[in-house]
């Protein structure tokens, strides 16, 4: 009980340095249950815009669940119940009259395993614009080129846009998924262990891409790889058993964490 209470009173130090930066997300007192399993407990977290926030922690700590709550994908599972508040740019995303489709056009997501649609590369990228009503060929062509370029996969795909996306390698598929996500020009990109299914070279490419995308987008990335978090993120949150143990500047977390659990985890003592 003692530790739990302590956890709840953790101060969010991550954005002190740049207090003025507008918030992309402001999460307050978020709780989530899978039926009776209290998977997220009193999560409070501020995510500044145009930064990379990494979420680390051992498997089962709730980090994936948390990121999926940010675009309300957890609702896909009917046994999930949530309470608390998540504000996306001042809008309460759990509000009754808040459109979940609108939220998801603003908040893109990249999944753990590359999951392109069983369609051509071109159709994968244009899927988002099309469902949101953009139909003219010229604009779509522009979107495809721009998105694929931003996702650093244009050179590999420009001559085979009409081919099925399943013909690409795993790493290429993942970058295509990022391009697909960029096509509707979201504000925030959520990445759920995007490199865990990839080889080291593909991982490196994705990491470089994240650094590049950070200029225009707010990125929240879940990773089980602490080196990755250290390499690419500005701030890092450490999750354990459904609570945030510590959330701070990344270099602070990895050099002088305040909590013992954090230190144990990043020094590889468990997890």
């Amino acid at each position: 009980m003692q530790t739990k209470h302590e956890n709840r009173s953790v101060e969010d130090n991550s954005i002190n340095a740049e207090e003025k930066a507008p918030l992309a997300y402001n999460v307050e007192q978020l709780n989530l249950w899978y039926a009776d399993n209290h998977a997220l407990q009193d999560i409070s977290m501020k995510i500044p815009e145009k930064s990379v926030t990494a979420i680390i922690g051992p498997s089962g700590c709730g980090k994936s669940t948390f990121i999926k709550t940010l675009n309300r994908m957890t609702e896909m599972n009917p046994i999930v119940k949530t309470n608390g508040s998540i504000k996306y740019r001042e809008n309460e995303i759990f509000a009754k009259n808040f459109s979940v489709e609108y939220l998801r056009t603003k908040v893109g997501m990249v999944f753990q395993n590359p999951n392109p649609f069983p369609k051509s590369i071109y159709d994968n990228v244009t899927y988002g614009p099309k469902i949101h009503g953009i139909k003219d060929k010229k604009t779509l062509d522009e979107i495809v080129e721009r998105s694929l370029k931003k996702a650093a996969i244009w050179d590999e795909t420009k001559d085979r846009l009409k081919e099925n996306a399943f013909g690409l390698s795993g790493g290429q598929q993942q970058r295509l998924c990022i391009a697909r996500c960029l096509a509707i020009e979201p504000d925030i990109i959520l990445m759920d262990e995007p490199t865990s299914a990839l080889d080291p070279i593909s991982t490196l490419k994705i990491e470089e891409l994240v650094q590049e995308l950070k200029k225009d987008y707010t990125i929240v990335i879940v990773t089980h790889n602490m080196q990755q978090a250290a390499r690419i993120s500005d701030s890092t949150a450490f999750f354990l058993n459904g609570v945030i143990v510590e959330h701070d500047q990344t270099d602070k977390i990895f050099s002088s964490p305040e909590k013992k659990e954090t230190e144990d985890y990043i020094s590889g003592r468990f997890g």
Partner: protein
Amino acid sequence: MKFANTTVPQEVQKENSPQLSKRQIWNKVFKGVCFTATAFSIAMLLILLVRIVTQGAGFLDWGLLTNFASRNAEDAGLLAALAGTIWLMLVTAPVSFILGVGTAVYLEEYAPRNKFTNLLQTNISNLAGVPSVVFGLLGLTIFNRLMGMGASVIAGGLTLSLLVLPIIVVASREAISAVPTDVKHASYAMGATKWQTIFRIVVPTALPGVLTGTILALSRAIGETAPILVLGALTYVASTPSNLFSNFTAMPVQIYNWTGRPQQEFQDIAAAGIIILLLMLLVMNSIAVFIRSKFQKRF
């Protein structure tokens, strides 16, 4: 006793070995019996095909396809039946496809977990076990008499649609549930609504499986005789249907009619008619197999 173990004394092993070989002989006999049972089924299929082809092949000619039914076996043809069957399929294919896929989408994507959904599922599996002749009675009462369609193409087509509906539902559900959750989630995560996800991702992805099931269902419908007979389809029609409310006959009905005649010649052209029917089935099944192999699981 049955352990093949080095510590077993020599005498026991000696005693055991004849017993073992006896058991192995039994095993061989058993395998032979089971093999024969399998071979019997294949042999029956071969005998049936060979018999029908040898009996009917000599009677295959253009006249068979271009003539109407006739009292004279030489002039008798399948034109009306062929046209009737095609008309029937023009009704059955879209109706059963839409109803079948719609039901499958409902059950896989929308249905809440409650008693009514359970009832729906049990109902569909029971419907699959209802004898086809009973569907004929349903068609006779509801479509023919109650709705006043008479023994028309549309009444027959609707009856057959309901008959094969469970086949399409089962195949479509299987195909739809095989669409990976990940891919559906990718669509939702882009702000797609449920309907957009179903229409643009789920159904197109499941389409090969759905089409295969539909074609197999239609090849069942094409060969069905009893429901159409009971519905009131005529066995002697000398015209092709002109619209959905025309009277009709169908391939299997015409074959039934010829089979029942005492003259040997009619039985021979019945065999010829069966060859045409089986060829149609062969073509449909080949298409189904082609679709299945061409779009084989990409996940």
